[in-house]
């Protein structure tokens, strides 16, 4: 995970002058967006716990957002993040067909992803 954290911490403005620079620039943008992803996952967990919104809506957004994080992390070779997001995506798929307490299925993978993102973004 150290490499992933380092990649995230390299985030910052920088002109991409060559193709490697261009890739680094996009990677940094992705890393910077992980802050927003982390915030959104935290908010979704709070909404899930408050039970004021139908869990189906939250689970669908968790699935969607986890899928995007997974895809981006895979492209930028943040394998552990990709695997952690993948676990949440798969749990959300399984949870979406549970008649009752489907939200319980996403609690642990969501907590793990939030924790991992918190460490990654430092």
């Amino acid at each position, binding site marked *: 995970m150290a490499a992933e954290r380092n990649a995230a911490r390299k985030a910052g403005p920088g002109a991409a002058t060559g193709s490697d620079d261009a890739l680094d*620039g996009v990677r940094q943008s992705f890393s910077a967006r992980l802050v927003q992803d982390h915030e959104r996952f935290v908010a979704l967990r709070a909404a899930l716990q408050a039970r004021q919104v*139908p869990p189906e809506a939250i689970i669908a957004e968790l699935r969607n957002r986890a*899928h995007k994080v997974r895809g981006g992390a895979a492209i930028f*070779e943040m394998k552990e993040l990709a695997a952690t997001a993948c676990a949440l995506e798969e749990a959300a798929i399984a949870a979406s067909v549970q008649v009752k307490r489907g939200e319980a299925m996403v609690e642990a993978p969501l907590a793990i992803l939030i924790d991992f993102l918190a460490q990654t973004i430092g």
Partner: protein
Amino acid sequence: MTSLASRPSVLVVDDHGIVRDGLIALLERQNGIQVVGTASSGRDALSAASRLKPDIITMDLVLPDMNGIDATERILKVLPDVRVLVLTACHNAEHVYRALRAGASGYLLKDAIGQEIVQAVNAVRDGKQYISSSVAPPDVGERFFSMPKSPLERLSSREREVLHRVVAGASSATIARYLSLSRKTVDTYRARVMTKLGVRNRSALIRFAMENELTEYRTPQRAAAG
């Protein structure tokens, strides 16, 4: 559209902007690969492919409007010389199978892209087939191209339509009204779908469809958390 210098032109299809940008940077880092356009949905991919006539399309599977498999099939009907390289985070034998049956020339996982993208692009450009080593070893990968029909492919178009509506949460009565069929007929279709897919109940049916049908990941309603 290959140029004099055999520089393959590539159309990048992915609904996630930053992934598109990353793919463009990765591809253009390689000498000789030229990204000529991007698309963010299945329908966008159809029009961009017709307009740009690229040599190769990198195609995500989960897309708005139309999934990547259906888009692949429709593009290849119109532009049979285009090579489609599926590029996805999904690692599921059914996905691999259906993509290849739709005419894709290759299947690459996003987490293998750094190591394999050049190899994959070169292979499909040269008319070969490519399956990511993280999906299957080469000797197994070749078998994907000659497998018999998958369960989903055994469904008729009407059965698939009923399946989509069941997955979307519609009751038999609602589906019957929409399709101008009797409820009994819809129930018969549902039973046939379940038999063909080898599932026993609605939950299993929905789960199978969600895992394999490549439906868009829609949020039913915006969660209230912000």
